[in-house]
Structure formats: C-alpha cells, structure tokens
C-alpha cells in the first residue's frame, strides 16, 4: 500500500510505562480508511496502545511514527465517559467547540472558522437541534454523539474510540455503529477498543487482539480462523 496513506505505524515497538513494556515487538499500521477493532482482556495493554497512538506516552523501544498531518494533536479521540461529565453544566456547543482547541495556538477566543467547524460536525452527527441544550441533561446516546462531534472537530482522518458503547442501550449502540460506518465510508480511519465484538465483527475490516505475551493483527476472516478468536467470539 502507498506509504503516504499510512497514518500510524509501529515498527518493532515496545509499548508500556517506565521502561517496562506491556506489549513487545509490536508491528501495527493504520491506513486511511481502515476500520480496526481492538480487543483483549483488561490489563492486556489496550489503553497503553491508545495512549501511544495519541502521543501521550512514548514507546519504550522501537519506533512509532505518526503521519505529519497528525502531529499537532489532530487525532479525534473519544475517551471513556467519566462520572464527572454525566451531569456537567455545559452547553453542547461549548463541549463540541472545545475539540477545536488544537488549532488555536495562543488565541484566547474561538473565531468564525472554529464555530463553523463545530456546527458542521453537529450537523454530521444529526444533533444540530441540541446545540443549546445542557450536556448533562442529554441521554447517554446523545452525549456520546456530542463527544463524537467534538472528536471530529479535532481530526479529519482518524478517530480513536475507547469502549464507546459501554452503558448504552442496544438501540443507541446500533445507532452509534451506523454513524461510525458512515464516517468510515467517507474515508475516516477508525480504531475502536471494544468488548462488544459480536455486534461489530461484521463491520470491522481488521481485528487487533492483544493478549498477555502476544497479539494478533489481521483481517476479520484471518482472525476467525485463528486461535485468538476462540476466547472472544
């Protein structure tokens, strides 16, 4: 594949903290338009991988390269919701526009271009009518769409999601998957940590399964034939 389309590339990387690698000899590439599900038991290193992709921690060995366009924090990130956020007094617009912070440099106020970007992404998530509502008063599924719109403000090419359907009812989860599918069809690369493999396996292009001491990375079909799939599917 064309190297310029490679957004994230890990070569023989050791991922972990304080010089202790949790995952070793890790080769992993994300290309434009990929749809990757990351599965694995708790503590296997999924969060470490995400933090490394986001540039929050450095690999303890090997290389992790990000595409030039991603370097100024331009990765859309959907973290797990915290308890604090659920009743946070903020308008939807305030939350979404905070995704534009990485393009601000030292300007203290958002300009017209940031506002346009926020409105465009609210529209993309079909929640334009909620923009003046209080974030804390929305349903779980609506809150997740707001956070997704915020992530889209930060990035055009890649979204990293950390267990996005946790706590959502099945209908809201299905709606979220449909949105992600649409974004992926538009060319957005998606890297999603999930425990909900059963409902997503048909949509994902590739699976990354991290296990203690090893990992599998490949297509869904390859995954279903491997020993790794027996644990989760």
């Amino acid at each position, binding site marked *: 594949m064309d190297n310029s389309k490679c957004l994230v590339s890990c070569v023989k990387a050791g991922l972990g903290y304080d010089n202790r690698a949790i995952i070793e000899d890790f080769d992993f590439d994300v290309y434009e338009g990929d749809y990757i599900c990351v599965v694995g038991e708790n503590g296997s290193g999924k969060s470490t991988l995400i933090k490394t992709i*986001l*540039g*929050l921690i450095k690999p303890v060995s090997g290389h992790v390269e990000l595409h030039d366009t991603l370097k*100024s*924090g331009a*990765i859309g*990130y959907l*973290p*797990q919701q*915290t308890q*604090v*956020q659920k009743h*946070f*007094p*903020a*308008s939807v617009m*305030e*939350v979404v*526009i*905070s*995704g534009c*912070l*990485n393009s*601000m440099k030292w300007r*203290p*106020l*958002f300009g017209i271009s940031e506002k346009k970007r926020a409105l465009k992404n609210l529209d993309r998530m079909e929640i334009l009518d909620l923009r003046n*509502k*209080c974030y*804390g*008063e929305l349903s779980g599924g609506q809150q997740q769409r707001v*956070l997704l719109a*915020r*992530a889209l403000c*930060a990035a055009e090419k890649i979204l990293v999601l950390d267990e996005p359907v946790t706590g959502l009812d099945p209908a809201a989860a299905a709606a979220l998957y449909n949105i992600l599918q649409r974004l992926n069809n538009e060319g957005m690369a998606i890297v999603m940590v999930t425990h909900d493999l059963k409902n997503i396996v048909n949509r994902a292009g590739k699976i990354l399964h991290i296990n203690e001491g090893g990992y599998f990375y490949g297509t869904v079909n390859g995954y279903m034939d491997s020993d790794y799939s027996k644990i989760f599917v």
Partner: protein
Amino acid sequence: MEEFIQMMSYPFIVRAFIVGILVSLCAALLGVSLVLKQYSMIGDGLSHVSYGALSIAAACGIAPLKLSIPVVIAAAFILLRMNENGVIKSDAAIAAMSASALAIGVTVTSFTTGMTTDVCSYMFGSILAMSQDDVVLSVVLSVVVLALFIFCYHSIFAVTFDESFARATGVKVPFYNTMISVLTAVTIVLGMQMMGAMLISSLVIFPALSSMRIFKSFKGVMISSGVLAVVCFCAGMIVSYNYSTPAGASVVLANLCVFIVFLGLQKLKTIIKVA
C-alpha cells in the same frame, strides 16, 4: 447609604472589603473547576493545613504568610495529584491531611502561648487581621486568576470537562492543574485570615453550587459564581457591621441564603416544565 460611608471611614474595614471581594472572586472562579472535578473538600483541607502552618509560624515568630503560603502550596500539590497516582483515595487523603495539620497546630500552640486571640482568630477569622501586605497580595492574586481565566478560558474548560481528551488534543494539562493548585492555595491562605479556617471552604463551594442550580452552560456558571461571590461577601459584611455578627459567619450565611433561593428556583423550573 450614610451607614455605608461611615463604615468605609474605618481603614481596616476598607482593607477587609478589598481583600474580601478579591479573594471571594478568586475562590469562586477556582471553585467552579474544583467542584466540577469533585474536589469540593480541598478548601477545607487546605485551610486546616494553613492553620497548622500559621500556628507554627506564630510559635517561631516567623511572618505568618511566609511560612504558610509555601506549606499550603505543597499540600495543594500533593492533594490534587492524589487522583493521578491513586494510592490513597483523594477524599481520604484530604481528611487525613486536614486532621493531622489541625493536630499539629493545636499541639504546637499548647507548647508555646496557649490559645491566644491570634490563634483563635485563625479558626473563625477576623476582619482586623488584614494588613497592607494582604491587600497587595490579594490584588496580585486576583490579577493572576482573572488573567488565567480570561486568556485560558477554553483550556480550563477542556481540562475540567475531560482531562484525557484535553491531553490528547495537546492542551498542557499539568500546567493548568499546577496553576489551579497554586492559586487555590494562595486564595485559601489569604481568605482564611478573614473567614477563618473553619469557614473558608464555603467561598470555594457555595457560589459554584448555587450557580449550577440555574445555569446550564459553563460560561453562565462561571460568570454567575463570580457575581454571587462578590454580592454575598458585601451583603455579609454589611450585615456583620450593622448587627455586630461575626464577619466570616455572616458571609457564609449570605451564601447559604442564595443557595436556598436558587434551589427553590430550580425546583420551580422543573415543576413548570412538567406542567
């Protein structure tokens, strides 16, 4: 009005007003972020640490602020970092630290002077305590706090709402957390001389708590907290002057009244919505 002019003819009351208004404003702005991050008890914890430090300073004959400001900044630093390390839960850490600091303070005091008016006024505050230095320091503090909240408003919102996302988009989260801890510490040390160690935390919590009843946007909560803090402080002081009630307690009661009114308004709003 005449009474007000008469009140302002005392230099110590003028000093108390200046320091009080500025400190209330700072405490309220910082308080919004602290309350939302579930650090409401931090004001209480830090004021006890400050009490301990002031007692030691009094016993050793050191200028009180010179010792207590660095000690309280260190304590604030430790407490706000607790969450990241997760060795001890932060609420337990605050409780443990405030009790220990109080115990140290009381013990040191009993060895030296005994409970003098000085030490007692640290507990419940005294508007006589404000010196010229306090006025200067509170002006500097409020300029720094206001500058931070005006120029870095969006980053502060991002850090308060979602630290992980803020980090990922390149906001310097440790810088903002450090600024908030240091400024909170200085606010507490300055404010507790007037409000007292037992009462200062209300300046941090009440304005944010009341504002959150009515306002549903971050900006609304921020502005309302600042305004409420200043209004409640002035109301408390005027009541205190006219009815000879303790100043710190009167300010807290003014805040409590506003909170009850706002709580009522919120209930009314939900009833109207349902009907």
